[in-house]
């Protein structure tokens, strides 16, 4: 999709759809939203819909950072402590490596 050829209303509605979609536990939609519309929101000369696009991008970025923080924390904890958790660790795991704790 080439944003250059889209009218501004369509850009806004696309941005809004990605923003709303991210709430369905889909942080990658927010990531794409931020990366895709960054130029539109902050680097292009102002147009009517831009402030709204800017706000969507900022909120998407915040949501994304929150998800990254939570996931990174959880993944670090799990990788570090899974072996020590014994039974709980095994029940939480999808695949358990063979031959190691």
């Amino acid at each position, binding site marked *: 999709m080439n944003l250059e050829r889209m009218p501004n209303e369509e850009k806004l509605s696309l941005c809004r759809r990605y923003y709303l979609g991210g709430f369905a536990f889909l942080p990658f939609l927010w990531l794409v939203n931020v*990366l*895709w519309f960054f130029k539109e929101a902050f680097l292009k000369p102002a147009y009517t819909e831009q402030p709204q696009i800017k706000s969507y991008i900022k909120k998407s970025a915040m949501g994304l950072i929150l998800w990254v923080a939570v996931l990174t924390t959880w993944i670090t904890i799990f990788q570090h402590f899974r072996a020590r958790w014994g039974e709980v660790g*095994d029940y939480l795991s999808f695949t358990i490596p*063979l031959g*190691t*704790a």
Partner: protein
Amino acid sequence: MYVVCIIRVIMVSSSMSRVMCVSAAAGVLSSSVEQKIYVELNETVPCVRLLNATHQIGCQSSISGDTGVLHVLETESDLDWILSSGPHPPYMVIMETAFFNRSVMMRMKNSSRVAGVAVIVSKTGLADNFSPHTTCPNQNTGVYSASYGSDLANCNVTMWNPLGNGLSYEDFAFPVFALKDENQTQVIRKCYQDHNLRVNGSAPQYPLCAMQLFSHMHAATDTVTCMRRTDLQNRFSINPEVLCDPLSDFNVWTSTRPLNNSAKGHAANESVVIAATRLDGRSFFWEQAPSAEGTVSGIVTLLATIQALSPVTQEAPPPRNIFFSFFQGEAFDYIGSSKMVYDMERNDFVIDLNNVHSMLEIGQVGLRRGRSLWMHSDPVSRQNKSVDTEVSEEERKLSLFSHALSLDQPSVSQPLPPSSFQRFLRVRGIPGLVLADHNTSFNNRYYESLYDDAENLNVTYPPDLSPDEQLVYETDAAKSLAEVATLVARSLYIQAGGEKKNLNNITADPKIWFLHQHVSDCVRLLWFLGSGPPQFYIGLGPRIHGPVHSVTRFVQYILANLTGTVTNLTESQCQNPSEVNTENKDLFSYFWVSGPASVNNTGEPFCRSASVRLSKAVSPAFELLEYGSPNYSIIPQSRWKSIRARIFPIFKYCPLLTNHTSMESFRKWTLMTGFVVQGHKWTCL
């Protein structure tokens, strides 16, 4: 991937390391190139991982094998080279026999420069003693504990195996293999001498000879974890991976008067004297357990006893029944005997503990010093007056026949040695004795090791005998065991209430020794005619290994030969004896065997009936699903995918091939690079 790899080969033709890529491609190209690089070592024996309630023991390799530059450990300076000064770590240590001891292995374990160990198994350089078992075998599953003879528990009074170094119960993070074939060891030595020798103290140059050992074990941590993970795999995985299997096989039992196998629980009007011994052994390596003094001496003695008793008990049966039992799995916390006692308690066996009058166990009896034989009894149960009287009676009866031997009792406060009788005592104070050739600690200097073989028992033949002549030659060891067997047979007969006048007919035949080396002419079992001496490791039982373990089958058929009778049933009748109304499937088992071998052919097959049975020997903890149980054996053996070894040359310094951890970091960097590249693609949207 295929195309990329081929291009690399063409471009970098001199670098053999890239050729690894070609083997990933399909086709004729891979196998011929692979054969030019690798020399597969077929005659190696691994050390595998076993678990217990709290620990893992044994050895583990990485999932794609451990590679190291070969170095032969012959002198102390080699040890320094490997552990600190050699420039091409990690090393794959080819260990001469003299260096396979606890101190060297623990130094290897603590070093990060050792990729694996291959031990040369030979008699040259063998130390005076080597026992990888613990100093106090089965200390937690015997009868002595904090609540029963606490001052006798944990070998406080007598250290049974003082020469034990406990190597079998250590956890090694690298593979340890045994090289048993002399020709193969020569190939390895030649590769080492051609490429890896130090010249005047300076380091050898590339190309170097390297070895790769694969023995990746699935199980980890302890039994509870392993069984839980196996359970999770079985329930939730599409392709379940089994991680470990309980050790299991069969006990062999027989009796002088047949017992009704379908009537479980208390047998009416039966008072039974149990004569028992163990059927298994172990060593540091998987499935290797020659166990001559540890196990075979007991088996042969009990078989000779049975042979001596069977004609007399047919003609003049004593009032009490004599129940002979060979327990499997005793090396691993008494698997077989604990299962039999468990079944007896739950009325799931042909007799129960109320039927048992007394017990006589044959321990290690092969290495008698001079003429002495010792009768061990349990001092704690003897505090009970009636038990004490019975045991003293039993000792007296044994002493009646000790003409050729000198029977002694150890001091009163000494506990029983590790024996199956201890499992019976845990449940009931049965009067009983354990016969052994040792007073305080074992005479066996190679207890539960690879070196407990015929030579350890001093079985030697004059050099000019053919194998057939060796079959009937009476070695000193055979005569010694026959003396013990005669003693046991006569005293068992008296203990069972038989009459003294029949005693002179009870004599054991020293020729029974053939059982250790060869198979009897009358009983030929195809799968037993393997090479080398029989190995007594318990194994995993019929689900995994196919039919019943060869040694168990061997003893079963020998017993059938010794105690059974020939019938004239046809083959189909032999397999379904319930259809024939003269035969009783509840009292006897029926075996279709081939007849005595003659010069031209193997003889006519026929049906033999005998009161010999197998009973399952798997730890009750696995049936009760109590995987952390302190009362029963909970030792499973890990599963694995492939175990192999190979040697190959390394042509230049290549971090991918020589260092396992470098391979890991290479993979991580590739992954990172991939992400960065992908991320760059995203930003150009």
